């Protein structure tokens, strides 16, 4: 595949704050192929949400400095004009936010909010937009859509609101859907419903999805490919099978080992990652993970503290770590 649907190259996002420059994203590259789901995993402050806000052009231009390249279906998005971005947003690219209550306007009916996007991009009439809203609510499984379309967000439960958000995101049949922690605020049984729904809709429409989450379980059940982020950089990339089955980066090991599982033995204590994530204003030298890593001495302290490791190899299952492949395999066993 020579032309991925979305291709991000060397993306750097800096915020200017009173305390200094925050390096939120620092040289990130990834691709999303058509019809596939990329899971972006990382902890708070790893830059996963910021990356996707820049794809949508939703950053504040006065305080944010972005460089690099973002190609969506061949079109360069960095430096694109406001009107170009407005035509893309909601139409070709759409987003689902974490908290469906704060992302919906309490003053407008669900139907109007879904219809607004449709009218803006297609110039449809009010009646057409409403009919479309009913159709979308039916597709995302809201019971009695003809009645519920006139409800306000507070009349919906959490899971229904998230379904309404999905309906709104899909109303113009976008080619790329960015879901930022779409199920974090929901209960497990509802989370399972929403994840199934997203998969189902992807099968129907062939859209690409970027699934941002901190939960490796969500990634395992929905994504095709995974990108693990740490301190604004990608530390591991590959298919779900590669990254979860044979993880290579010490941070990925740490994440997996610190998660309790339903099937694991309960007598073994969890092995958390030491310490806390670094400040993005003052990043550690070299590999940003080295202050928390157990294998610095094995890989060579000068290497780890000296220069930042690149994600290698460039294609397929890659990771940014100085340990040799043999060492990684042995440690993971």
């Amino acid at each position, binding site marked *: 595949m020579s032309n991925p649907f979305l291709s991000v190259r060397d993306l750097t996002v800096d915020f200017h704050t009173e305390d200094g420059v925050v390096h939120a994203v620092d040289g990130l590259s990834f691709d999303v192929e058509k019809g596939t789901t990329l899971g972006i995993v990382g902890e708070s402050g790893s830059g996963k949400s910021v990356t996707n806000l820049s794809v949508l052009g939703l950053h504040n231009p006065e305080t944010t400095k972005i460089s690099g390249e973002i190609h969506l279906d061949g079109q360069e998005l960095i430096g694109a004009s406001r009107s170009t971005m407005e035509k893309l947003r909601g139409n070709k690219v759409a987003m689902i936010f974490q908290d469906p209550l704060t992302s919906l306007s309490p003053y407008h009916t669900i139907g109007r909010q879904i219809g607004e996007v449709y009218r803006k991009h297609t110039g449809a009439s009010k009646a057409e937009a409403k009919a479309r809203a009913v159709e979308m609510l039916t597709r995302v*499984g809201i019971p009695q859509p003809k009645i519920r379309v006139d409800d306000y967000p507070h009349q919906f439960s959490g899971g229904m609101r998230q379904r309404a958000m999905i309906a709104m995101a899909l109303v113009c049949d976008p080619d790329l859907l960015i879901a930022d922690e779409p199920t974090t605020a929901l*209960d497990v049984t509802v989370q399972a419903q929403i994840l199934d729904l997203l998969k189902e809709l992807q099968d129907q429409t062939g859209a690409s999805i970027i699934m941002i989450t901190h939960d490796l379980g969500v990634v395992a059940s929905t994504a095709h490919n995974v990108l693990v982020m740490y301190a604004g950089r990608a530390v591991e990339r590959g298919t779900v099978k590669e990254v979860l089955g044979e993880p290579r980066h010490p941070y990925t090991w740490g994440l997996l080992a610190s998660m309790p599982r339903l099937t694991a033995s309960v007598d073994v204590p969890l092995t958390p990652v030491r310490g806390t994530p670094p400040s993005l204003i003052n990043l550690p030298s070299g590999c940003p993970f080295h202050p928390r890593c157990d294998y610095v001495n094995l890989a060579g302290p000068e290497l780890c503290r000296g220069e930042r490791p690149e994600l290698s190899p460039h294609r397929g299952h890659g990771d940014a770590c100085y340990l040799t492949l043999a060492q990684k395999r042995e440690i993971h066993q």
Partner: protein
Amino acid sequence: MSEPLLEVSGLEKHFPVTGGLLFKRQVGKVHAVDGLDLTVQTGETLGLVGESGCGKSTTGRLVARLLEPTGGSIRYDGREIAHASRKDLKPIRAEIQMIFQDPYSSLNPRHTVGTIIGGPMEINGINPPGGREKRVKELLEIVGLNPEHYNRFPHEFSGGQRQRIGVARALSLSPKLIVADEPVSALDVSIQAQVVNLLQQLQRDMGIAFLFIAHDLAIVRHFSQRVAVMYLGKIVEIGDRASLYERPRHPYTHALLSAVPEASVESGSRERIRLAGDVPSPIDPPSGCRFRTRCWKAQDKCATEEPPLVRLGGNREGHLTACHFPEEPTVHGEDVVLDPALLG
């Protein structure tokens, strides 16, 4: 069996719902907790799981007596505390401590760490040998923080460190029971494990009993010896960890377990049960079995007769289930999908 440290029976908490513009009339009540029986033995952990709105946090607050129940009894260490006065509660408050979910809003931003952790000792007039400051520094060390941070303010700490401050505060009076309400759900994955390990260590070293409230079934399984599953203010299933997780008998427990996404690549063997819809309103809970509106096994009997919480044939001692048509002990049936959006 010795007498349990905590024995709750028939516990009820109904919050009034008022309506009307001028005269606030009571128009209904939220059945937050509606007839709950549970026990916690000295030094053990009882995990309490359920979805939001099932009453698990209210239960925690009732046990810590931050709320007064509208019915039922709470016996702590042989004493009835359900309606005890403030004065009678004071010595008991020292023994039952609480850890809260949000490490940001549960610490006073204007107080130093020393004041926050020393606060409970000051209120209770406790003067440990060597002074309070020495004790606070010891506690900081126990929870894995630097004792030199005594004079710092909460905003100087990360979320995980703040939660450790909350743990140190709960430990300051040497409690026998800690009610931990979602103590790790606001933390990042790698930090969650640090705090879970700390709590386990403390339990081993000090023999503290925990009522561990969480919605994350994997964390609860890791931390609790016994687990209770709540649905709409009632316990639907309770039992020791191995029995409950390996052989769930209540359809709701089964559905909850099957909904947890696992971070592994070979997940083909697991069953999928997808519940439709949401939890009904606790203002007007369904008659009979409260789960019947989402249950795929529900029959007429479920609407008329409330199933008692009993030990079913084939279950271990202490594993109780409230269901008329329980699951077989070893069921590996077909996928159950009840979500209308997925049936096409």
